[in-house]
């Protein structure tokens, strides 16, 4: 008998367990699993929409308004990149990691860390640097969901782009190294024009 148990293997043991709990309980557990996983995923995707992002006034009044002026919001073909397309990874494991990090943003929402335009302006550089660092570290993964440089036709690009792109890739640069502030405005940047700016960064691209 003891030997039998050892020889059963995984499927055998599962079958034995099924016999023990009965078919109805097993079916119930199976359905509960589907409902639970489906519900979890559904809720997760619900937080992955533009509508959810701009349900907080911090997003709606600041970054969303700026983004509406840019090509990722409106353009000739109507293809759009909404908030999560750039700010939430597509791959499941990275997505979950980012979503866990985002609980910190919920905390700051309820703390009111950037709940006025003044507070947001004061914090813009720090927040922008977080995103630049993330993009730099993952080789601008979210950009490359749409803009795969291996498929770029340089001959279709305008003079400046067709000069800069092959050179940048040869030098091992990633999208965010040059394309900062393409969907949002930039923090104060020192550019040697006019009086020195207060709290300015020297890095602009």
């Amino acid at each position, binding site marked *: 008998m003891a030997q039998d148990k050892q020889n059963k293997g995984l499927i055998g043991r599962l079958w034995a367990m099924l016999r023990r709990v009965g078919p109805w309980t097993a079916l119930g557990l199976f359905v509960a699993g589907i409902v639970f996983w489906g519900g979890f995923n559904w809720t997760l995707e619900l937080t992955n929409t533009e509508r959810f992002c701009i349900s907080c006034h911090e997003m709606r009044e600041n970054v969303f308004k700026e983004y509406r*002026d*840019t*090509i990722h919001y409106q353009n000739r073909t109507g293809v759009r990149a909404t908030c999560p397309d750039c700010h939430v990874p597509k791959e499941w494991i990275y997505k979950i990691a980012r979503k866990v990090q985002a609980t910190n943003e919920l905390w700051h929402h309820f703390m009111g860390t950037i709940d006025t335009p003044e507070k947001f302006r004061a914090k813009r550089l720090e927040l922008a640097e977080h995103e630049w660092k993330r993009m730099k570290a993952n080789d601008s993964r979210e950009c490359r969901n749409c803009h795969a440089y291996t498929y770029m036709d*340089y*001959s*279709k*690009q*305008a*003079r*400046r*782009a*067709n*000069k800069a792109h*092959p*050179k940048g890739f*040869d030098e091992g640069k990633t999208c965010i190294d040059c394309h900062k*502030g*393409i969907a949002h*405005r*930039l*923090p*104060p*940047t020192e*550019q*040697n*024009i*006019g*009086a020195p*700016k207060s709290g300015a960064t020297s890095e*602009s*691209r």
Partner: protein
Amino acid sequence: MAAAAFVLSTSLLAQDRPQSLRGATPITETSKVDQYQRGPDQGPIPRDYVQQPPLIPHKIDGYRIDLNFNKCMDCHAWSKAKEAGATKVSLTHFRDQASGAELANISPSRYFCNQCHVPQVDAKPLVGNDFKPVDALAQPGRK
């Protein structure tokens, strides 16, 4: 007619042998960057009068100039121009227009670039115009 044929034949003779787009790079080697065919936009259109602010030979859609950031300076500032392959802001822009003093930075009165500089368009004039550039700007072969 004969004269035209003569001019054509001499210009053909004067040309070198046809050059590959790869230049002189052998097929076994990777060609250098910047050898691709030129894109759809065009090089700078020459100026028509001496004081004319140079035209912008590229698109400036979405290039913002605001309190925090001046997109033009991203390439045209003296510190960026070489790397970006862009034209430097003119030396005249370092002079304070009110006092005439030379500044260490570009004068704040020059902050809004597109007050004077506009993107170039090869547009046909809507009404007839017999304006001619001064002799100093006249270039051979230009109408």
